[in-house]
């Protein structure tokens, strides 16, 4: 029987008349329970996120005295912006720029490296293929924090600490991307196509460029998305690799805002020339997640498939 054939037709085949729902009210209530529960969870999630975003548009006084919801003002965002710009002469915007360099750079390298590697692993037979695939899956399921200190020792041995390019290159190693590309080519590219190309005398590189690259759209979107989000939100690696404030990424920079805040560190913040309370912190946190949100929306239609491939890493 075909999947998704209309229920009525199926019931007709099994020889049963469709029974009209004559369920007692109490049972119907019980049947509603999972949906009610799901709704409650969704409402809690929305409540948390919405109050957090709204905090950027409220005053400290309102947060202090009016509870979860209070008057919102868009001009408050301008005030937050000025406070943030005044902090260490606008270092926040350097952080955003640095994050953009390492996250876009890292994701671009990840795509450029993972696509051909996934193609070769999926389509060619060679010695060491099994070992390489095993190493790919192994490194993919290991948390990326585990190598941070060893990588730091390596990079400091060649005196490249406090530079952005090594961070982007390290982010470029994205075994999950290679695995995604591997699965993508395994399921979309027929061997016969490669065979006929070879008979026509196309070189191996030519086969990749002419057959595999045009098919890559889905894999490119997924690899770029997952790499970008992982890189942008990474904290431990940039913390260790970029110790100077002006070369930090924004996720480490947020930590500096917290420790400089009058709210969490009144003594250290005594000499601070700007206000860093919850509205400003919320503004800084929400502003830095907008790029992730944009990339997320761009990649959304490719995501359900990616998720099924095991799209989760630590």
């Amino acid at each position, binding site marked *: 029987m075909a999947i998704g054939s209309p229920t009525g037709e199926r019931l007709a085949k099994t020889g049963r008349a469709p029974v009209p729902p004559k369920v007692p009210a109490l049972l119907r209530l019980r049947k509603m329970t999972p*949906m009610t529960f799901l709704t409650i969870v*969704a409402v809690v999630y929305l409540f948390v996120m919405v109050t957090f975003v709204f905090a950027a548009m409220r005053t400290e006084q309102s947060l*202090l005295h009016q509870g979860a919801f209070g008057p919102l003002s868009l001009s408050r965002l301008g005030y937050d912006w000025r406070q943030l710009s005044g902090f260490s002469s606008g270092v926040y915007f350097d952080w955003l720029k640095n994050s953009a360099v390492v996250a876009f750079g890292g994701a671009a390298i990840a795509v450029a490296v993972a696509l051909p590697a996934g193609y070769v692993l999926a389509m060619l*037979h060679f010695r060491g293929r099994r070992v390489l695939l095993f190493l790919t899956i192994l490194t993919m399921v290991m948390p990326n924090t585990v190598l941070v200190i060893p990588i730091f020792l390596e990079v400091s041995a060649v005196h490249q600490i406090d530079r952005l390019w090594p961070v982007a290159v390290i982010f470029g190693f994205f075994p999950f991307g290679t695995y995604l590309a591997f699965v993508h080519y395994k399921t979309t590219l027929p061997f016969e196509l490669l065979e006929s190309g070879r008979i026509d005398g196309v070189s191996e590189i030519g086969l990749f460029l002419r057959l595999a690259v045009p098919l890559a759209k889905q894999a490119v979107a997924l690899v770029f998305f997952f790499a970008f989000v992982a890189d942008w939100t990474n904290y431990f690696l940039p913390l260790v690799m970029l110790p100077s404030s002006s070369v930090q990424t924004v996720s480490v920079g*947020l*930590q500096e805002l917290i420790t400089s805040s009058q709210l*969490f560190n009144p003594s250290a913040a005594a000499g601070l020339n700007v206000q860093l309370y919850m509205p400003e912190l919320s503004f800084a946190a929400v502003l830095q*997640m907008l790029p992730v*949100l944009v990339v997320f929306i761009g990649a959304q239609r490719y995501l359900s498939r990616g998720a099924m491939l095991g799209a989760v890493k630590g």
Partner: protein
Amino acid sequence: MMASSRQGRGGLSLLVPYVVLLAVVGIVPTGYAIYQSFLARSGSGFGGISAYHDAVTEFQFASSFAHIGLVLAVWLPFMVIGVMGLALMLHGQRSRLVGVYRFIYYLPGALAGMGNFVLWLFLLDPVNSPVRPILSWLGYSTLNQTAEPAHLPVIIAFMLFFQGAGTWILVIYGGLNGIPEELGEAATIDGASRWQVTRWIKLPLVRPWIAYFVLLNVAYASQLFLEPQVLGLATEGQISPQWTPNQLVYTFAFQVFDVPAAAALSVILLAISLVIGVLITTRTGLFSNRD
């Protein structure tokens, strides 16, 4: 196979960038850390296992692993039951809201890391918190009271659930969608209840995903750093800066400047994740590296 005999060597050059990165970012640093871990504390000369001895006998060593155990004891059941429960409930629904809810559950993932942390500071600090009535009912009026060290396992469990559960719900939901509908329908016609369909058909079929999920989260928890570290900074030192093993590595490397001990502890942590990684790769049956 014909293909392999005719296929030229040229194709393998496409692998070069990946293999180089695997070496530079994975294999070389691992080897270098192992080498450093056998150096003497002065940084020069062979030190045998003295760095390992230093790391293991550090008084925070055992407690940092105990903290990971505590976090796992709270977080893992919370996560498994929460994610499986929500995914199964979503899967049972016909409503169009399902897609909306999946999206809402996923959204905090975009705030992952520090963004999520700032959000939780907002929730936990009674001064601004939108849930202040709950906090004051619990008797907390300052952040230091909400975030006292004994509460950390629960707080971290909440933080990690909020940022990570949505993605896992997508994964498990995707796995449930892969089950042919006829299977459940046939069982229902034979008189199986909804619970029986879930218990005997759906759960066994997504079992590999659950195993993957548990192992991956154990590996992740053993690596905790951000949450206890920054919460410690925000509460003016009431939480030990060596609360987790990774924080201990960080202290060895950047406060004590005992690089061999930092390397030795890194190697120990690496070995733990390696064991978990090998279990995931070879035992869950999700990643067949055959054809």
